[in-house]
């Protein structure tokens, strides 16, 4: 105990952040780094394996022991993989569906969250509890009636079933996240605007939304991610190859070129690239978003 205290004092005197537990000695520090490093290697191997395979010629793929550094490096695997199937088209389709879905989810969840966070109306609490309860709903229970509904509307093989629901409430997660965000903004802002004669929706639009941009960014990123990665629902509603999104295209690629591992890995990597880029650009918002919905849930 005494040494721990001494070390902490020593550490503080060097201006280093003091650990919330106790100062760890060197051997346990080394052990922690070693564990983290071993874990990181284990988590990276699948990625490295994918990238390595995607750059190999066919005959080097079926080889034991496996070669990690491809030799020669075949960049043209990527060009071949992307031209043999219309990935450009899938990409455009995915962008179209995803962007409209993100816009719908942001708009509708912001308005709804504002209602739950700031406006008083009878039944607000019970409705909010219902909203939270819908987070626990396995949506597959709704997929058959919705399929039949869209079929009768002639919406099968269109993007409406993928986009329209996002304009109606979006997702309970996003509503919850934005509500939590609005609750952190001082109520005096609304009061002052109200005195100036602002109506409730002008308060939202002109005062709260600009302040909520970090929260909205988090929603945008998760919305992008979920819509981009969605598989089962597009699989049900999109039949035409021309309408496919990236995940459906990747699945179709595998059906046709099942054992062209280099091309399949190249296509998988390209399909993942947009989310990887977004993740690296906005990492902070990912972490914050999960922390808000997770820790305070």
């Amino acid at each position, binding site marked *: 105990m005494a040494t721990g205290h001494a070390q902490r004092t020593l550490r503080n005197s060097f201006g280093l952040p003091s650990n919330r537990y106790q100062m760890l000695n060197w051997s346990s520090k080394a052990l922690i780094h070693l564990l983290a490093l071993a874990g990181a290697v284990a988590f990276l191997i699948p990625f490295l394996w994918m990238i390595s395979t995607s750059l190999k010629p066919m005959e080097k793929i079926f080889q034991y022991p496996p070669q990690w550094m491809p030799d020669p490096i075949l960049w043209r695997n990527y060009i071949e993989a992307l031209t043999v199937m219309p990935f450009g088209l899938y990409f455009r389709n995915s962008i179209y569906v995803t962007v409209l879905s993100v816009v719908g989810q942001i708009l509708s969840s912001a308005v709804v969250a504002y209602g739950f966070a700031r406006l008083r109306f009878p039944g607000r609490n019970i*409705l909010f509890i219902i909203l939270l309860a819908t987070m626990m709903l396995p*949506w597959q229970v709704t997929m058959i009636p919705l399929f039949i509904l869209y079929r009768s509307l002639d919406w099968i093989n269109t993007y409406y079933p993928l986009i329209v629901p996002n304009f109606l409430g979006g997702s309970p997660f996003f509503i919850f996240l934005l509500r939590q965000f609005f609750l952190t903004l001082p109520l005096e802002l609304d009061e002052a605007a109200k005195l100036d004669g602002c109506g409730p929706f002008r308060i939202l639009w002109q005062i709260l939304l600009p302040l909520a941009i970090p929260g909205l960014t988090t929603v945008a990123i998760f919305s992008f991610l979920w819509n981009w990665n969605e598989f089962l629902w597009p699989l049900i509603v999109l039949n035409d190859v021309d309408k496919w999104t*990236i995940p459906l295209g990747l699945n179709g690629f595998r059906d046709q070129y099942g054992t062209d591992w280099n091309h399949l890995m190249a296509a998988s990597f390209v399909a993942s690239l947009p989310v990887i880029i977004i993740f690296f650009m906005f990492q902070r918002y990912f972490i914050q978003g999960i922390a808000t919905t997770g820790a305070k849930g």
Partner: protein
Amino acid sequence: MLSRQAQAGQDADGVTAGKRPRMSGIARKEAIAGYIAISPWLLGFMIFQLAPILGAFYISSTEWRILSAPEFIGVRNFDKLLFNDDLFWQSIKVTVIYVIFRVPISAMLSLALALLMNQQLAGRRLFRTIYYLPAVIPLVAVSMMWIWIFNPEYGVLNSLIRVFGIEGPQWIHSSRWALPALIIMSLWQVGTGMVIFLAGLQGIPAHLYEAATIDGANTWQRFLKVTLPMLSPVVLFALVMNVIGSFQIFTQAYIMTAGGPGNATLFLVLYIYRNAFEWFHMGYASALAWVLFVVVLVISLAMLRSSEHWVHYEGRVGGA
């Protein structure tokens, strides 16, 4: 001005008299704005959730092959799945095994990673990125990667196992190993759980650890007596969401194993999908979907109920 004063007066009356005051004009306007604000969600909830759930219940009482009209058959679909469909019980068995193994193992792994990331660690942000990244990759792409990783002859996993002089199993090509393979693969995506736990850990006030240290608690005791109780609400949330998510497993099985070999990975949602969209038994598929709904509902409610016994809520006085 006048109406604002009137409202203030009413509010005070409402409090003292203890009954609901009639709404003032301003309050009514606010309430109307509130209903308008939440109306997108309310509409969406009724159209895309409530009505379909009830609709699915109705469809489950019919024989409906989509092209012809639905024919009412009462509870025969439920009768069939309970007493006359081995594949249904197989799908329940496989799904439950997946949930039972995947949820606790991934919870422990993500807690371990979160504890690790909560230490003073050089390059902590980089480690966090590496651990979290697999959780954002499209599941279809992840499935493609892991088909190749699990390749018995040339896959990286069996190559690594061979280093120890052991021949690895056939993984997704073996009816015995396919389910464990999908569980192993799911552990690669524990990043979300890690971030949830990490946020929870960072919310634990440092003075609790200091007090425990002064009382002479060692690292392990502090973990048991401070960290775990303080983290238990977060653990409950993560476990419930993970159970719900795990029951919905579909993509991996659809792409990697097609439910096989020998129905070893015929998860419930895959079986629902096949009945509905490959065989067009809309009635039977809806009955299966209702089973999923009820099972998930009962299990999550049971977990939330059990939380009274193990979740510690700060600020609660005397076990209220």
